[in-house]
């Protein structure tokens, strides 16, 4: 059983018409995602089932996403872990607002991993999104939806580097992860980049810090 929270912050001021959760002229916490799931490992296969509550913190008046957009999704996923291929299929079903599904097909393959401390792992990942019901409903266009139409939403390719910068024997470890990701946008909603602006292809860099304490993290090599 696993649970967690993901907090999304916006640090830059946006202009009217730009994509934002906090709203025009505002920064800070934009979204809180609370998630919980059950995971079952069966040999090289992992099954997951869980739910996520999306709670938006922005100002509707300023063009951001406010509590009226809050919703809940259920998800099930199956992954296979092998040396080179780590495919995952995940189905998300919105039960709060749009009552539709979204299918994610992804895969990861390691490029190389440094076997000594500090361990460095490099991997390539690819993802395709398929909207199976989270598009606008023609009889009710006022309902909020995430995508403009059914079908492929985007295809993404990323390269990630991760290193365990601090191994704390008996406690856990600290990992720094970062990478580059490119995305081919196929749905109008994914292309949207502000009024009058569309991006068919986007490239961005990202980074993060993970702290894993207890359990198997204590003795990892």
């Amino acid at each position, binding site marked *: 059983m*696993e649970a967690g929270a*993901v907090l999304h*912050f916006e640090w*830059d001021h946006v202009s009217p018409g730009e*994509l*934002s*959760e906090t709203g025009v002229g505002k920064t800070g916490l*934009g*979204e809180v995602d609370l*998630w919980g799931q059950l*995971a079952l*490992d069966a040999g090289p296969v*992992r099954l997951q089932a869980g739910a996520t509550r999306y709670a938006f913190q922005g100002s509707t008046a300023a063009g951001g996403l406010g509590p009226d*957009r809050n919703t809940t*999704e259920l998800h099930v*996923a199956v992954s296979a*872990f092998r*040396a*080179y291929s780590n495919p995952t299929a*995940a189905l998300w079903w919105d039960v709060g607002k749009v009552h539709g599904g979204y299918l*994610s097909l992804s895969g*990861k*393959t*390691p*490029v*190389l*991993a440094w*076997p*000594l*401390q*500090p*361990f460095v*792992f490099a991997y*390539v990942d690819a993802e395709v*999104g398929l909207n199976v019901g989270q598009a606008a409903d023609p009889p009710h266009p006022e309902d909020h939806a*995430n*995508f403009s139409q059914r079908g492929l939403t*985007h295809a993404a390719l990323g390269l*990630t580097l*991760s*290193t365990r*910068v601090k191994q704390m*024997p*008996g406690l856990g470890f600290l*990992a720094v992860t*970062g990478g580059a990701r490119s*995305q081919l946008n196929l749905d109008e*909603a*994914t292309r*949207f980049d502000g009024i009058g602006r569309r991006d068919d292809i986007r490239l961005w860099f*990202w*980074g*993060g810090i*993970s702290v*894993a304490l207890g*359990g*198997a*993290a204590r003795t*990892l*090599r």
Partner: protein
Amino acid sequence: MIRNHGAVLLAAGVLLGCGGSTRRAVPGQPSPKPTNASGRLRAGFGRADITPPPGVGLAGNGPEGAMAMGQRLRLYARAMILEDAKGNRLGLVVADIPLGSALLHRRVAQLILDSTHIGVDRLIIAATHTHSGPSHYFEGKVYNEEGSSVPGYDTVMVDSLARRIQGALEGAAANLAPATIAWGSRAVWGYTRIRSLPAMIRNLPPPMARPDAPAGLAREYQLVDPEMSMLRVDQWDGSGFKPRGAFTIFAMHGTGNASGTVLLDGDIHGLVERRLERHIDSLIDPRPWPFVPRSLHLFANGTEGDVSPAWTPQSRCDTPTLAPLPFLEGAFAPTLWQWKPPSERHIAACVHAGRQGVDWIGEGVGRAAVELYDGLDPKAADDIELSRAFVTLPLRDTVRVPGICNTPAVGMGALVGADDAHTRMLGWSLFGVFAMGLDQGTPNPDPKGCQAGKHTLGDVLVGPLLVKPTADGFPSHAQVTVFQIGNRVIGTLPGEVTTTAGRRMRDGMLAAARSRGRGMPVDAALIMGLTNGYLEYITTAEEYTAQYYEGGSTLYGPGEAAMFGRTLAGLTASLSAGDPLPPEALLLMADPGAPHGFLHPRRPKERDAQPSVDPPTCRGDTLFARFRYGAVQDWADSTGSAGSLPRIAILRDKTVVAWDDNPLVELHLLHRRAYPARWELWWTPSVKGSYRVRVTGRPDAESSAVECGGMTVH
């Protein structure tokens, strides 16, 4: 729930491992001119306990070398000093350590110069090459960082080892006494094999088995150099010359234990050492002497570069595999990866199979050593001269050291490990499809430059970016010695010489010795590897083209063996005694890396820690006892004194029947942070009885008795 991934920045971090070179000159003083001529050949022996505490990395298996979590056999440094009639001395140390170290050699030489009159040119420190010994004391940063899964250089390790070896040598100098000696040799078949036969058969002329090779042996067993050469030394005890010790050279990797082992141990060499020592002890005094043997067997390695002990396939452990971490894996966090270890059951099985092999090989080779020893008849040798020649080679100066590449490089075949212990990188391919050459026997398809057919990681990934910082971490100098004892000349090299390379070197030395026209006649030339430093393997140019593990680890290119062969021949031709060395023969640079303390000097409160022992239990045929003793990062013996008493003893009635230097007694650390340290003893008694466990201290702690044993006889 924005799925078009707006520019949400969580945090950004870039980690670049930057570190400048820490190369520094290491001082060295030559032996002074002898002033104390006794007119006799004299010999002395000394021993030091060099067993480090748990927590250190077990060096030799790279990333598969575990952190030490206990001990089986104690590790010792055994020292012998010989002094000829004119007062020229030679200090020989064989230590139960994985690799040689120029840093350690220079440090010991500095410590003993005044007390023993032995300088760098007359001191040989050889490693038995046990892969169950400590890391962290090398002059090359690469070996401190990557010799085991525990990275780092430790000045306390260097100082502690040096002080202990100093003690052994000073002990030997203190008991110098008239001696008689005898050289002998015999073949030992069936316990060693060539592990890289496809590389060996590239040599011209093709390798031939000796005529006395047993016909039934497989080819890789027939092509080894089976020669066990032994110097028996008897010592005057006031009433006569009595057996006292031996110095043996035999080619065999110290890789009997599986890579999954977590115990410090002397491996096969530890058993062979003890087997002959017990035998010599019995010749001195037939009454049982239960603890540390009184006599010494210095069991050094020869040209073992491509020679494995006859381990069985089931004694090799699987390596970890790459897999995403099962926790935090999902849509909410970036994937974290792990090297997933084999199951504990698998590790236990391969470690157990490794021990069976160690016992069998140790008994067989030990028996051969006893037979050879018994066949030797020491004679007075007061007329011999302990001549020597010594040089420190600057390997990156191709003017002074021609014939090799001026930049070291490691081939792909080295990254994957030898057959004795592959690393987790074996067979890795890009996306599981495109081979990267991470295998043995994968030379560069487009040979170019000095390293020619060596396929390096830099060829595949980041090219020159990787070469410079990596090269800095490898040794840049090599200490080479040739010395003569009686009718044998012995060349020492800071690396692992293959069988064929060693044969060529010996031929060159013998020819040089016979053509010099002075000094004592020479009947044989011998090679000691793993001495006075470490720069990996030394293969012939033909073997190098195969790029097996040994060729991939020949750092300075295909000309290395020929260069060392010329050097050894030149030194053999210039053997001398009683003369000073030129200063350029001494310059040595080292780059051990930044200190990274694992160990600490013994602190007062730990010295006074009171031991305790819980009531033992017996499960199946094994006795288990938990006890508290010492501190985890502290040396069990603060001085290195080998002592005459066990630290942990098992008693039946009032008789000690086993102790903490017995291959059937394992001491497992239970908790790395507990103080005093918590241990568990495992022992399988062969005789059913009532046993108690005693832990030494002030006062000793002794357990209650438990009935155990009798189910298994080893």
